[in-house]
């Protein structure tokens, strides 16, 4: 299945979807499939100021632990509360219910370097 075209993708496999000055961030299907069953998600809390390139959290799977990066400057406005009790949402619906954080963006410049869905999927075939 192709990745949704309404967002852009980083080389480290996070998707970034912009709606006005708010941005939602999650992991691509390719990434969650590679991680396998995700058992725990720990994102930095609401109110944390972040810069492009920062680590903003960790996801833990049965197999491995991975950092999550963001590509913009801003402040974490919301952490997906559903993942606390059901981290498997990341595996089952990475582009929807499995979103990680919402960020109030102060500088979106980093987004310009990210890939469109088609280019991302071409570089990372399932």
């Amino acid at each position, binding site marked *: 299945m192709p990745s949704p075209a309404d967002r852009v993708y980083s080389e480290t496999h996070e998707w970034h979807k912009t709606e006005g000055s708010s941005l939602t961030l999650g992991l691509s299907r*390719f*990434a969650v499939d590679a991680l396998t069953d995700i058992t725990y998600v720990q994102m930095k809390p609401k109110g944390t100021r972040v810069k492009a390139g920062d680590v903003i959290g960790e996801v833990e799977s049965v197999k*491995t632990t991975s950092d999550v990066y963001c590509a913009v400057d801003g402040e974490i406005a919301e952490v997906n509360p559903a993942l606390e009790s059901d981290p498997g949402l990341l*595996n089952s619906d990475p582009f929807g219910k499995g979103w990680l954080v919402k960020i109030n963006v102060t500088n979106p410049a980093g987004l310009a370097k990210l890939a469109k869905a088609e280019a991302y999927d071409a570089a990372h075939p399932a």
Partner: protein
Amino acid sequence: MRTPLGGFGTSLGDAALLQTPLHKFHVENGAKMVEFAGWEMPMVYSGIIEEHHQVRTSGGLFDVSHMGRVKVTGRHARRFLERLCTRKIADMDAGQCRYSLVCNEAGGVRDDVIVYRMDDDDFLVVVNAANRAKLLAHFDRVRSAGDLAVKIDDQTERTAMVALQGPKVIPLIARISTEVPTLKRYRFAVKNLLVMKLIVSRTGYTGEDGVEVILPATFVGMAMGLLLKDANPKDPNSPVRPAGLGARDTLRMEAGMPLYGHELGEDVSALSCGVDFAISLDKDQGERGEAFIGMDALKRTRDAGGPPRTLVGLDVEGKRSARQGMKLSIGGKEVGVVTSGCPSPTLGRCIAMAFLDRALTAPGTAVQVDTGRGMLEAKVAKLPFYKAPKA
């Protein structure tokens, strides 16, 4: 994310990979295939945790054809294996298999293997996929150095090997064989089924009862039909379903079993990895006694009081897992290193294995695990973490 493909098994690159005779079966059952030790192997079908529970509660089928199968025959076959193996071969019966280590001169671990004794001068050695080429070269050197009359035949790519593991496996097999369910642990039978010869051993790497089956590559399709009789792998209620390398790893961790590259390695003393039962430092004594390579070094280690660090289990607090390479400390002083770790699907908490300073290995000892982004609290635990309930 930094390393979405971390741990063992990366995604498929361009490298020419070996495919097992079960490749089509994996693809048809929706496996996610990864590279592992030069082979294209199934990491996961439905989900690692689901497959893990399937094995603990019912039955799982693993393709382990990537493991090396090397036939060793000839007048000096036994003596040859005595020199290689840390465990005695002379007192093995035909029809018996034995877990053993193969060491280097320094007492480090070249590999862990299972030796099958087919007959007096006829053996099969099952080795790790990643070590097959290295061991074949070692076998060749040992044969030449000892001027031994031994034939070494690598049958890996002409045969397949599957593991059927779980509490419902033996009752299922009882419907097609009366002999196999009577086999004791680490015994095997050679079965002639229609036109094919199967080696069925009561062995495994999951902590569950079950069998491992070696068969000619060309008969895989037919054999799978027989082995999975009445068990459709795609049916979620099927008693036996395919399980991948991911579940194999979490199962063996719960069972406290070492894995080459984690708990075992060339620079790891054989006496430190929790498998002392498989090391006979007196096997050169008595009738037909023969020393093994690495024995002198291991005797010196033993006489010096043992290796500085030994393998322990760790119960890790919280939801974050300790992972290979993370350092252990007590009060800021480094005392060990994690070799494997995962959130345990059966126990519902994080478990790990680690090398820890010998003096600190009493169960209950508190240690800290440095994740690189903070410390986790852990306590030394007895291995294994999980034992199958008695049938």
